[in-house]
């Protein structure tokens, strides 16, 4: 006779009440998950989240209320749960899971780790930590009505990085700076502008006209002449944008005329760009103000109309006003913080969002595009994924069901489960799929991970290798790199300051050439990656490096829908065929369509 405790067999109930589990993330999925764990009988739970509570969380993260806005999610989640279940032993960390304090040893304390994350970098990191510690990981994600859950167990299943996931789409610099043709280009430009003026200046986020644009194709001799001409043209100076703005006291009118008149007129001199394109039309502040006064009544009319205020599209005059107001607000915020201060752009910070809305729209107008509402711009600028309580509730429920299988030792019964928006032909809304075995060539979980990277050894800096390639592309947090040259020459040390002198040197300066091999380690992740260098003089436009063997960039376009009300989960056409050797009868395609926050199959209907 099997002994039961509630609906669980006694051994399982005992495991549940005694084991320690880690929940990474205390947001949408996290709140629901904590509740489910506690009600199922889990007693020793640790939860970590670096974020604080925002008003926009309150529609679904039910452990938080209005009075908690601004406080630590992990902390408040713990307090709310303990109110409902005093017996629960919960430890909360207001911290980043990527902090080296959370070592492989830390992870080994747990019987099970459950992710409730919203970004790929953290998922990659936790994936590696769980592989290193050999602890089962339950991975999940949601977006709107869609969601999924899966298990990752070293040696048994694919890891999170076994299948390449499309990287977020980036645009060439000259498109952003010279020849935008879509609203998203203008929005990215506006975000760059925010950083140039108020935030951390980034060499990759230039906003001024790009004279090096290959399409403009000038003679070298002409270039010098034009460069001098531009220096004499109005207020355009070859100083940093921030310094220039500061020198004018962040004068909105001067700023406006530089960005939307002077810089545009400069672009117009690059006439080759405009032979097949509609040329931009400069705006002038005082002219606009005159026109604006006449059309003031239409602005008022718009505001009195129904519907959400954010969904209105103002006129050019309206956006020039918004631009001016937000510049004033932001520049005084900056001044308040003192010397060397930097603002960080946040979609939920009204003046920051106002600024991007205004600047992007003004630029759209200059380049003859229809302007967009704040609502739509926020979607695109903030990469917003719609979120509701119910999807997270379903997924959190599924996570616990899978967790129970893991704890019972029934890993063979675990599977990937997709939550769809509509029932599939078999009338299923929840679709289970068999788990795939690990990819033997995975650059993370293979026994000796190896990749080949194509780049130009004479023009790629050590800094780029560290930041763009090893950290951004290959998910390392603190890489150590040595050359496999028999001498073990150290290129990069994760210890601060040790190899800083190497940062602006080029790979070739260290004798690295075609065929060289580099050993990159991340000791925190217990991860070693062998990098084969393939030298090439001819990389694509604006491409600094290319990982050989990657699927061609089929990244789904960011949400650019007209209404911003519908959200599709990426481009259905870019679904990649199954690479599973065992075949998979239960569903029709693999699920590599993560736009940012969740990963799932969007074609399985």
């Amino acid at each position, binding site marked *: 006779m099997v002994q039961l405790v509630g609906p669980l067999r006694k051994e399982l109930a005992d495991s549940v009440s005694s084991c320690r589990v880690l929940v990474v993330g205390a947001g949408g999925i996290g709140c629901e998950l904590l509740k489910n764990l506690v009600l199922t009988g889990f007693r020793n739970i640790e939860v970590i989240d670096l974020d604080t509570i925002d008003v*926009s969380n309150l529609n679904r993260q039910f452990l938080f209320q209005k009075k908690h806005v601004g406080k630590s999610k992990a902390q408040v989640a713990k307090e709310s749960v303990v109110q409902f279940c005093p017996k629960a032993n919960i430890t909360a960390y207001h911290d980043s899971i990527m902090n080296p304090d959370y070592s492989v040893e830390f992870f080994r304390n747990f019987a099970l780790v459950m992710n409730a994350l919203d970004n790929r970098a953290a998922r990659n990191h936790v994936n590696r930590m769980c592989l290193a510690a050999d602890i089962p990981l339950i991975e999940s994600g949601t977006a709107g009505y869609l969601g999924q859950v899966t298990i990752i167990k070293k040696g048994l299943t694919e890891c999170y990085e076994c299948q390449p996931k499309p990287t977020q789409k980036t645009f060439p610099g000259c498109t952003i700076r010279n020849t935008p043709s879509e609203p998203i280009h203008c929005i990215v430009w506006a975000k760059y502008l925010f950083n140039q003026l108020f935030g951390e200046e980034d060499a990759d986020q230039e906003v001024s006209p790009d004279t090096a644009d290959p399409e403009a194709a000038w003679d070298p001799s002409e270039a010098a002449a034009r460069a001098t001409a531009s220096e004499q043209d109005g207020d355009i100076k070859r100083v940093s944008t921030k310094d220039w703005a500061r020198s004018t006291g962040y004068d909105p009118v001067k700023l406006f005329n530089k960005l939307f008149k002077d810089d545009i007129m400069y672009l117009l001199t690059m006439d080759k760009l405009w032979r097949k394109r509609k040329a931009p039309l400069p705006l002038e502040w005082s002219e606009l103000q005159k026109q604006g006064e006449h059309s003031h009544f239409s602005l008022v009319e718009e505001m009195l109309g129904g519907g959400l*205020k954010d969904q209105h599209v103002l006129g050019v005059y309206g956006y020039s006003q918004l631009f001016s107001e937000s510049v004033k607000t932001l520049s005084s915020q900056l001044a308040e913080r003192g010397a060397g201060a930097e603002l960080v752009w946040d979609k939920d910070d009204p003046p920051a969002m106002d600024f991007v809305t205004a600047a992007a729209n003004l630029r759209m107008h200059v380049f003859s595009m229809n302007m967009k509402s704040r609502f739509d711009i926020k979607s695109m600028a903030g990469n917003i994924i719609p979120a509701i309580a119910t999807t997270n509730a379903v997924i959190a429920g599924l996570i616990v069901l899978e967790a129970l299988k893991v704890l019972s030792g029934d890993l063979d019964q675990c599977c990937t489960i997709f939550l769809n928006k509509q029932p599939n032909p078999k009338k299923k809304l929840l679709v289970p799929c068999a788990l795939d075995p690990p990819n033997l060539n995975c650059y993370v979980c293979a026994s000796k991970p190896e990749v080949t990277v194509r780049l130009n050894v004479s023009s790629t800096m050590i800094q780029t290798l560290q930041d763009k390639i090893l950290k951004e592309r290959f998910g390392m947090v603190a890489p150590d790199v040595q050359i496999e040259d028999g001498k073990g020459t150290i290129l990069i040390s994760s210890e601060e300051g040790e190899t800083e002198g190497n940062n602006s040197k080029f790979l070739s300066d260290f004798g690295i050439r075609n065929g060289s091999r580099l050993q990159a380690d991340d000791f925190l992740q217990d991860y070693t990656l062998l990098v084969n260098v393939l030298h090439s003089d001819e990389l694509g436009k604006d491409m600094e490096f290319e990982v050989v063997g990657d699927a061609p960039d089929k990244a789904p376009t960011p949400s650019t829908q007209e209404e911003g009300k519908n959200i599709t989960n990426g481009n259905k056409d870019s679904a990649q065929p199954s690479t599973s050797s065992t075949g998979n009868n239960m569903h029709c395609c693999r699920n590599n369509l993560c736009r940012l926050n969740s990963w799932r199959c969007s074609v399985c209907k």
Partner: protein
Amino acid sequence: MAANKAAKEQKYDRQLRLWGDHGQEALENAHVCLVNATATGTEILKNLVLPGIGAFTIVDGHKVSGEDVGNNFFLSTNSIGKVRAQQRRLWELCGGGSCCGFAPDKLLDNDPEFFHRFSLVIGVQLPESTCLRLGAVLWNAEVPFLVCRTYGLVGCMRLVVREHTVVESHPDNALEDLRLDQPFTELKNHIDSYDLDSMEKKDHSHTPWIIIVAKFLEKWYSEHNFQMPKNYKEKEAFRELLRQGILKNENGAPEDEENFDEAIKNVNTALNATKISSTVEDIFSCDLCDNITAQVGQVPRKNTALNRSTKMRSVSHHVHQIFLSR
């Protein structure tokens, strides 16, 4: 008032991007009744309260037991013995809600019309007899009834609804309605204003692709008895016709005309016959259109019941006229 609205827009931002302000309004105008505040019931209610349901009422004749506390997140040990309908923690979540400590059977005995006021009634763990009685009342009152039952790790639910009206369906793949087979007067005039044959290269390459398709469709009509390309073979032939229309340079090689490329790419979706879909036809052919009552599903705000009924009747007639006349 305005500040309140702005605060709500902020709070509901992430869901407004899914169902829009009309969807949100429908939620906020709804009044849901939960019968039996079990763990399942309160879980359901939580998921309605969070996105902003207008109002809810709990009907539950039970008192809180120890069992309830073990599996209901919103109850604690000091609620044991109290009226289960009073879910204080749930009310804190949304700032309101009403309760009724009577059992549903009692209400059905004494005041079945109590249930008529709701947009939806959710019945959890109800015995069959109560389900049947309540179901009958709700069916006659045209109130949707959601029946739920859970047992350990197993559960089921069933929705009983007479008719559900969807006006804004948020389709994922809507085809453009271009009317190229039946251009209205202004469209026809606009198309006629273009003369591809006499254009310079610059204008030729900048003519919108829809005009190009329209022009070549005219050519096609004259050779195909005014029938649009219907199958793959004909569409391919039509595409070839478009290809032939691309300007050629001195050497006879085709120029780079992106608008023609676009036109060719869009042939499949641009050449749709203009007609009302059968599902829409069915709606307008339905008897109900001739017998409009005030209670004909949810309709966009600012329409009173009276406006609605007169509008519906006239609209259905007008729509028929527009589409069926030439």
